[in-house]
């Protein structure tokens, strides 16, 4: 099929009310969830996942992508109005957004956040469309050894999602790799850690582990400390963003978008670092740098452009290589698999219409974000008024029904509870859960490609160094680990010197 055939088929998939409705619902859910402090875009995507089972693949994935994009923008609303970022990606928006709200310019700040987000989102989507196909065609020359080294490199994204403790992140990842071995062995079909329980022979369901790890600990933490007050919600005021102000900050928005795209395309970095880097670059280059941190509109534009610039770009490694760019795209990989799709270069050959349908849907999502965001800005007060003492227990029931729906299995519900308490234990001892999940998802891919390589070479490790592609990934893996070790040593030295 030619490109035009694929594009036509893709348009037919997207231009149905059900696909567009899924996307719109996703954006609405994402904006609302992102706007609620205590819920994150990650949690929202995880909770939405079970609802996609009954949908067609394109509808399910568009729903999740809508939640992702809406969630990243939604976090800016409480960041500006109550100095509490709804998602980590909106942390940089607080720096100038909240001071603007204190000056009675909340409406202007929110409008700039919205327009900067939508512009960056569109640029990110265009980058995805331009670069993914090229990268996927390159990846067609990958065999199991190349994929093994690629996934090994991807595991270094654990460093990016480990927060302050790289070592604890690595331990979490090790536990995730171990949990991923539960089930039948890939080559010989023998039992691994099933202890003769038939419920474990298929392995632990990814959605159950995901919801247990990401949603339940928040609920358990709330039960332990049921704190209701979030602070005063600032009024929107009567100042609005003018076109001249948007145009004045357009260069900053473009710069932030490019930063978001570059960092988003590199597995493991995520939206929060992109937002901060965009903010610091904007401050460095700005004529009004003295005003940054005191309510500078350019600061809001920069941070929001940075974080939304990541969204489309994180899909580049996902669609082209089958490797997640961040935790949320790691969840979306699971969604692809649930619908019988394997993201990666092979998908361009087998399901190109779905890929192109996603591209078209993502362009539409930027426009939907503009519409939904405008309404959400005005409606935040009602969202913020939802008492957490009612919200969190209700979310638990939502989790239970969602998890049960995966396999109609009460075992999964029990497993979710166990994973929830395990995730809470990780939280208490400050072990980040994201590395666990990333390793849990990548572990089977890593082992599968390793063993296929060993089958090809009859056990010789030399096959893992067979091509320039493998040398490249070994090289970047070693460089990344070296850089991480060096920064960890430097951090320890500076804390010894300071303490």
């Amino acid at each position, binding site marked *: 099929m030619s490109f035009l055939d694929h594009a036509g088929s893709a348009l037919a998939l997207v231009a149905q009310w059900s696909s567009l409705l899924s996307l719109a619902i996703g954006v609405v859910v994402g904006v609302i969830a992102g706007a609620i402090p205590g819920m994150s875009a990650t949690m929202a995507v995880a909770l939405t996942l079970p609802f996609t089972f009954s949908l067609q693949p394109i509808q399910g994935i568009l729903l999740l992508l809508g939640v992702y994009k809406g969630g990243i923008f939604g976090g800016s609303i409480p960041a500006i109005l109550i100095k509490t970022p709804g998602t980590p990606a909106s942390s940089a928006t607080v720096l100038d957004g909240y001071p603007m709200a204190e000056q009675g310019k909340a409406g202007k700040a929110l409008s700039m956040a919205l327009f900067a987000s939508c512009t960056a989102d569109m640029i990110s989507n265009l980058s995805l469309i331009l670069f993914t196909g090229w990268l996927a065609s390159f990846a067609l020359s990958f065999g199991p050894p190349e994929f093994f080294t690629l996934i090994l490199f991807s595991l270094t994204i654990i460093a990016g999602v480990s927060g302050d403790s790289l070592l604890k992140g690595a*331990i979490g990842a090790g536990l995730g790799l171990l949990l991923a071995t539960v089930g039948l062995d890939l080559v010989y079909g023998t039992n691994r*850690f099933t202890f003769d329980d038939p419920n474990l022979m298929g392995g632990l369901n990814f959605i159950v582990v995901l919801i247990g790890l990401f949603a339940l600990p928040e609920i358990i933490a709330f*039960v332990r*400390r049921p704190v209701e007050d979030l602070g005063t919600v600032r009024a929107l005021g009567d100042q609005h963003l003018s076109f001249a102000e948007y145009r004045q900050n357009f260069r900053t928005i473009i710069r932030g978008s490019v930063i978001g795209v570059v960092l988003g395309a590199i597995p493991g970095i995520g939206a929060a670092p992109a937002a901060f880097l965009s903010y610091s670059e904007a401050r460095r280059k700005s004529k009004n740098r003295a005003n940054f941190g005191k309510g500078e509109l350019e600061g809001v534009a920069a941070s929001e452009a940075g974080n939304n610039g990541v969204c489309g770009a994180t899909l580049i490694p996902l669609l082209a290589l089958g490797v997640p760019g961040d935790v949320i795209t790691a969840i979306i990989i699971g969604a692809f698999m649930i619908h019988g799709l394997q993201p990666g270069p092979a998908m361009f050959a087998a399901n190109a219409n779905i890929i192109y349908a996603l591209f078209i849907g993502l362009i539409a999502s930027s426009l939907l974000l503009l519409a939904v965001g405008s309404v959400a800005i005005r409606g935040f007060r009602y969202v913020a008024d939802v*008492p957490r003492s*009612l919200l969190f227990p209700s979310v*638990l029931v939502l989790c239970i029904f969602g998890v049960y729906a995966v396999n109609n299995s009460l075992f999964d519900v029990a497993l979710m*509870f166990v994973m929830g308490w395990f995730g809470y234990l990780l939280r208490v001892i400050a*072990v980040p859960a994201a590395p666990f999940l990333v390793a849990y998802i990548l572990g089977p891919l890593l*082992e599968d490609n390793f063993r296929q390589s060993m089958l090809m070479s009859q056990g010789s490790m030399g096959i893992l160094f067979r091509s320039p592609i493998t040398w490249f990934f070994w090289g970047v893996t070693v460089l990344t680990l070296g850089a991480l070790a060096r920064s960890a040593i430097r951090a320890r030295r500076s804390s010894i010197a300071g303490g």
Partner: protein
Amino acid sequence: MRLNRDILFGGAVTLFGVSLLVFLIPLGVASPSNVRVPVLSPLFWPRIIAWTLIGLGLVQVVQAALAQRAGRTGAADPDTGDGAALPGAWWRLPASAVLMALYWVAIPRLGMPIASVLLLALLFLLVRTRYRLIALATAILVPLVMFGFFDHVAGVPIPQGHLLRLP
């Protein structure tokens, strides 16, 4: 005290790695007798992970011990702190765990919707929500809406138990 937690954690990880090698892998992983290439054995990957955990656990212990010696505190429990919290955290946590266990046992008997109504109501009591009337309505409506969506829209047969069967 906080740093001891990190040392304990590292020690626990190391011990877990050792127990993997000594007990859990031999008991839990079946390997056929005709594996000619060791790296293809079902035992290979779990053993690699076990050794990795042992190594990381030991590094964690050493790092935490050195930090304690240097007088540096480790990461705090994120859920302790200011006095805005409702007292009684020490019993709310185990109570919520017991509730979840009882809920799971109750599902086959009461059905998921009714068991969820009870779970929600008890959780609202546990966190002592101020919005009692809304909580009561929420406790009834949320499970019903979930049941309605999953059972009637998504086609998932939600277990209903023997007491009361919803349409």
